[in-house]
């Protein structure tokens, strides 16, 4: 009887496959070895963990309802304003960063701006903006706007670079100005995807707005941080549940709207 073995797809040579596995296991041993765990502390923490789990199953929306309401409202308003501002600002940056319709100096400037915005974590940006603009929602708004410009600007630029050139040439051959050709030839081609991506970013911005509060930039994150610091697990559980529910609603809505548009 012949034995059949599934072919190996990634690394064909047996020698390299084995040595890669060996390397992987050596790393795994070293890596796991570098985690020093304080087992007594973990043991003490397990009780808190089970407390938290039971609190998560019996969330308390009532006791801190004012704080929770204010936090959620702040997060949502930050999300809306920063997403809208980010979309509006990402359009010039996206157009400027598309190689096929932009000129070299503007292209380089926009690409650099987008690269810097994308490689900076929102939380780190928030730390600096809080230092500059003071604690509160305004710093959060600026942080998320900045992050949105990088995210949408890059995707818009790639979308514009991938358009069908024929339509652009057709519109240009009628003697249309640069602005008219963007409006008539490029905008209709990239619009459906841009709308979808904007909703996706709205989603991300809400999730991020729940985090930047930890460093003082407003939103539900600050409320959550306080609840955990005070060991009010039932309130923390309620906040986490609210975040999950709102994110799920956002995802469902954005999926529905994207289907409706395309």
């Amino acid at each position, binding site marked *: 009887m012949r034995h059949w073995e*599934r072919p190996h*797809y*990634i690394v064909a040579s047996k020698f390299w496959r084995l040595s890669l596995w060996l390397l992987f296991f050596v*790393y*795994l041993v070293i*890596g*796991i070895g*570098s*985690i*020093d*765990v*304080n087992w007594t*502390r*973990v043991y*003490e*923490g*397990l009780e*808190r*963990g089970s407390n*938290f789990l039971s609190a998560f199953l019996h969330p308390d929306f009532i006791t801190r309802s004012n704080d929770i309401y204010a936090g959620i*409202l*702040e997060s*949502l*308003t930050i999300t*809306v*304003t920063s997403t*809208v501002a980010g979309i509006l600002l990402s359009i010039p940056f996206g157009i400027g960063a598309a190689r096929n319709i932009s000129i070299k100096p503007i292209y380089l400037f926009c690409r650099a701006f987008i690269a810097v915005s994308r*490689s*900076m*974590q929102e*939380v*780190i940006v928030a*730390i*600096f903006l809080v*230092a*500059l*603009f*003071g604690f*509160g*929602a*305004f710093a959060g*708004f600026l942080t998320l706007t900045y992050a949105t410009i990088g995210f949408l600007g890059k995707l818009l630029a790639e979308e514009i670079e991938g358009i069908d050139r024929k339509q652009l040439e057709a519109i240009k051959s009628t003697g249309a100005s640069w602005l008219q050709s963007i409006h008539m030839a490029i905008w209709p081609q990239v619009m459906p995807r841009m709308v979808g991506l904007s909703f996706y970013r709205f989603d991300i911005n809400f*999730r*991020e707005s*729940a*985090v930047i509060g*930890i*460093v003082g930039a*407003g939103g539900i*994150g600050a409320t*959550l*941080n306080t609840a*955990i610091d005070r060991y009010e697990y039932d309130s*923390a559980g309620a906040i*986490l549940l609210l*975040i*999950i529910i709102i*994110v*799920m609603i956002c*995802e469902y809505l954005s999926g529905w709207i994207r289907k409706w548009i395309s």
Partner: protein
Amino acid sequence: MDQLTQHTLWQSNIRRKNWLVWGTCFVLALLTVYCWSIMNKDTIWEFVYDAPEQGADLVSRMFPPDWFYINKLYKALWDTINIATLGTLLGLIIALPVAFLAARNTTPSVLFVRPIALFIIAASRSINSLIWALLLVMILGPGILAGVLAIGLRSVGFIAKLFYESIEEINATSVEAIESTGASRFQVINYAIIPQVLPAFLGVIIFRWDINIRESTILGLVGAGGIGLFLSSSLNVLAWPQVTLIIVVILATVIVSEFLSAKVRALLIG
């Protein structure tokens, strides 16, 4: 007559669509203004107006960076990379079964098991790794372990979602071919599904590792180990030259990891 009605119908259709678009824009603008007014209720505008001065002051404090501080950062950087890598592996181990339970064509029960798997995915995805870290530091105490678990738990949803979507997109013919030989469920997965989804899976894992490197750099802000721990302690004592250096190191790490993951992806998937 026929032509005429068609013509008017077409015009009104466009007009109605235009009205709809403008109406949506108008409502959106109103909503934004309303949100803006609520959001800035507590904003102290004096702090905003003197931001340029504050910025100039901050920059003068931040430069030059404290280059010698880097000797203390090597260990933290190694921890950060470990948190990201081990966290990705942990996420992968949990995500694999969840993905197969969530995919419509491999789940044992669409009615009972699939919704549970989808809820696990949604819960893991909607909570940021920093919040996971906040919870885990409270339970396990500060340290690398909390960071690894936070990254792992956050990665589960991301990896499982992209995995199950690619499982649902596979070609059913080869699954049927293997099934018709009398293969068991596990054998079907091994011989018909895995070969089809492996490239997509590898791409997802590398992509997530890249994201995890970014996220693990800040986990230390809540005490979950890595270079963020040093960032937070330098911020607390307002040692801005050290902060500058740490930011430079973080940016360099992120750029190197992005470069590496692009290379590996090109090598594996082509």
